[in-house]
């Protein structure tokens, strides 16, 4: 299998960039691209000391797989992709998402990595609650889900 997706409880085990790069390596792949998302200490003028990630894991993992398959359709079946998204509370600097793409050449790896993170941001069932240094917490305003991937039961 050349796609790995998961939602991980980051309060139990942190996300691991080395694991992602190892997964996308293969003898035929001369390029590997890595994207890391981390909790930053400031957002929209407010000082942040942590973020809690809420995830509807079954649908999120299916959605990650669909996005990775789309990337393979765009940039080739040789593409190997790793996606792990965190669930639970992280402090500033903690990794919330790790994406790696391996491909024969660099252009496909860079493009696929960018595609996967951008699609996850607008399509995947994940929510952030920011915790501020003044003790307040707020759910981050996000992207309303569109019709993509919709289906009707028979």
């Amino acid at each position: 299998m050349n796609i790995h997706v998961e939602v991980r409880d980051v309060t139990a085990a942190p996300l691991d960039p080395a694991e992602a790069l190892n997964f996308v390596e293969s003898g035929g792949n001369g390029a590997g691209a890595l994207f890391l998302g981390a909790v930053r200490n400031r957002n929209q003028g407010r000082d942040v000391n942590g973020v809690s990630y809420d995830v509807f894991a079954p649908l999120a993992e299916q959605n990650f797989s669909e996005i990775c398959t789309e990337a393979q359709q765009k940039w080739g079946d040789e593409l190997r992709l790793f996606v792990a998204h965190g669930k639970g509370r992280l402090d500033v600097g903690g990794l919330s998402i790790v994406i790696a793409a391996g491909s024969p050449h660099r252009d496909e790896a860079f493009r696929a990595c960018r595609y996967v993170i951008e699609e996850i941001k607008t399509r995947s069932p994940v929510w952030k609650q920011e915790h501020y240094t003044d003790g307040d917490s707020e759910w981050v305003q996000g992207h309303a889900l569109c019709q993509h991937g919709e289906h009707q039961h028979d």
Partner: protein
Amino acid sequence: MQVKIQLFGAFRPLGDVMELQLVEQAKVSDVRAAFAANVPGELHDTLAVSRFADEKAVLAEDAAIAPNAILAILPPVSGG
């Protein structure tokens, strides 16, 4: 018939799951109406831009709901 709605994001303060009683042969739009009747007014704007889903996909508003279905309410997303 009864359905369970798993709550996420801005709906989390209401609990992890909400149980709703619906008419037989209910559609997602019926779930939305019953859900709206059970959430405080300050969440109605968020509900208007939220979608219902099962573990496989986001559901169309006219999709039929099976008895005892377990669905999820998905407010606007902010992953990454």
